[in-house]
C-alpha cells in the first residue's frame, strides 16, 4: 500500500517538482504515471522509494511514514521494492551476473540459491546467454533488460520502473509489458513512469497523469 497525502516536493534551489499530491496505490495494483517531460514522474517514484523526502505532506509505504523514517530503517524499506532507474544505474566493472546478484548479496542469500535466482531472472529478460558479459558490451536495450532483471531478482512486493521501455523496440517493449503483467498477476504492485502509449493501450492500467508537478485530474480512487 502506497499512499500520498498532500505531498509537496521542493528541490534545493527552490524548484517545486510536486505540488499537493494525494493518491493511493493498493497492493496488487498496476499503475502508470504519465505526463510531459519534467512533470515530476521520476520525483514521484523517488519519494516512494525513500530516495527523496517530501518537503511537506506524508508518504506512507505499508503504513510507514517515509518522511520520518530513521535512516537505519530505510534500507529495509527499499528491499520491498524492485527499482528500475531511468539511467539504469548498472555497474560497468561487473559482469551481468554480478550486477543481478547484487540485491541478493545485500540481503545475504546463500550462493547457490542466489545463482539459481539470478539465472531465472536473466532467463526472463532473455539475457541468460550473456551472463558473463560486461554491460558495456550490451546494446542499449540489453542494458535496460539487465536493469529489469536486477529489479525483479529478489521477487519484490512492489516494482517501481522509471521509463523501462525507453530503449526497447516494440517487440521487447511488448514482452516487457507481458512480464509486468505476469508479475502483477501474482500479486506484485507495479508502478511504471512512462510515455509509452502502446504499452498503456495494451495493459490497460490505471493512469495517474501529472502536469507541472500537480495531478492532472482529481485523484483517482484506489483500485478495489
Amino acid at each position: 500500500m502506497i499512499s500520498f497525502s498532500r505531498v509537496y516536493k521542493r528541490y534545493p534551489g527552490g524548484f517545486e517538482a510536486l505540488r499537493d499530491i494525494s493518491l493511493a496505490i493498493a497492493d496488487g495494483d498496476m499503475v502508470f504515471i504519465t505526463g510531459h517531460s519534467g512533470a515530476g514522474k521520476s520525483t514521484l517514484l523517488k519519494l516512494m522509494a525513500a530516495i527523496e523526502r517530501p518537503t511537506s505532506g506524508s508518504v506512507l509505504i505499508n503504513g510507514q511514514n517515509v518522511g520520518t523514517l530513521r535512516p537505519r530503517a530505510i534500507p529495509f524499506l527499499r528491499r520491498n521494492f524492485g527499482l528500475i532507474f531511468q539511467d539504469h544505474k548498472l555497474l560497468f566493472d561487473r559482469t551481468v551476473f554480478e550486477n543481478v546478484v547484487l540485491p541478493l548479496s545485500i540481503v545475504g542469500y546463500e550462493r547457490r540459491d542466489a545463482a539459481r535466482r539470478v539465472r531465472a531472472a536473466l532467463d526472463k529478460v532473455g539475457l541468460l546467454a550473456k551472463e558473463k558479459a560486461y554491460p558495456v558490451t550490451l546494446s542499449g536495450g540489453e542494458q535496460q533488460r539487465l536493469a529489469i532483471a536486477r529489479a525483479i531478482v529478489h521477487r519484490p512486493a512492489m516494482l517501481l520502473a522509471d521509463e523501462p521501455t525507453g530503449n526497447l523496440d516494440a517487440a521487447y517493449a511488448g514482452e516487457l509489458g507481458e512480464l509486468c503483467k505476469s508479475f502483477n498477476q501474482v500479486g506484485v504492485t507495479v508502478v511504471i513512469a512512462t510515455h509509452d502509449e502502446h504499452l498503456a493501450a495494451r495493459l490497460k492500467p490505471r493512469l495517474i497523469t501529472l502536469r507541472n508537478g500537480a495531478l492532472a485530474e482529481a485523484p483517482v480512487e484506489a483500485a478495489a
Partner: protein
Amino acid sequence: MRIWLSQHARTLAATLARLVRSPVASLLNVGVIGVALALPVGFHVGLANLQAFASELAAAPQLSLFLALEASASDVAQIDQRLKRHSGVRKYHYISREQALREIKTSTGLADVVESLSHNPLPDAFVVDASDGASQTLEALRDEFKRWPKVAHVQLDSAWAQRLEAVLKLGRLAVLMLGALLAFALIAVTFNTIRLQILTQREEIEIAKLIGATNPFIRRPFLYFGALLGLAGGGAAWLIVLGGVYLLNDGLSDLSRLYGVPLRLHPLTAQDSLSLLLFSAWLGWFGARLSVGRHLSELEFR
C-alpha cells in the same frame, strides 16, 4: 547466524581477491607498513636481547670485600671462617694483597709504577658469589659484611647492571614512543588507501544503497581490507625483523669467536609475534574505520 557467517566469509574472500587483483599497489602498501612497523619492533628485539644479556650477567652478582691494610693473617682466617658458614654465600675466593700486586704488575703494564712503590698499597680481598641475585639481598649482605671487623670496604659489582637496566628502561620508553608514532603512520596509510577505494567505488556504493544495502554491509569490505592490509604489513615487519636478526647473527658469530663469548640474538617470541600481528591488524581496521566513517557520510543522501 549461518547467513551472517557466510556473508563474512564471502566478504573476506572478496577482499583477498581485491588485494591480489592489484598486486603492485598492495605490495607497496604492505611494504610501507612493514618497514614502518619493523623499526620499533626491531628496536624492541634489540632491547629484549640486551636485557636478557644483562640479566644473565646480573644473575651472577659478586661482592668484593676489601680488608683494612693492617689486617693480620688471623683476621683473614676469621673472615674466611665467617664466609664459609654464611648461608647467603654460594662460593668465594681469597686474593691476598701480594697476589693482587703481582696481577697488577703482570696484567696492566704498570710494572714501573708498582716497582717504584715503597710498600704494597693494596688490601687483602675476598670475592664473594651470593646465592641469591636479588638486589635487596645483595645490599643487605653488603651492609652486613661492612660491619665485620677489619672489613674496610665492600663493593657490589652488580651496580653496573642496575645502571644498564636504567638505560634499558629509557630505551623501552623510546621504542614505545617510536611505536606510537609509526602506529599513527599505519593508521594514516590505511585511512588514505580506503579513502581512494571509496572514491573509486562511489558508484557501486550509491547503487548498493539505492537497492537496500545497510551501512554495515557497505562498510564491511573496507574494514576487512584495512585489517588485512594491517595484518599483511605486520607479517612483513615480522619477516624484516627475522631477516635482520638472521643477518646480524651471522656477523655476531665472528665476533663471538674473537671474544670467546657466546653472542646470539633471539628473534621475536611467539607471544610477541602474535601481539604484533594482532596489533597491526587492529591498527589497519581502525584506520579503515575512521576513513569509512568520514567518507561514507560524505556520500550520504539527504
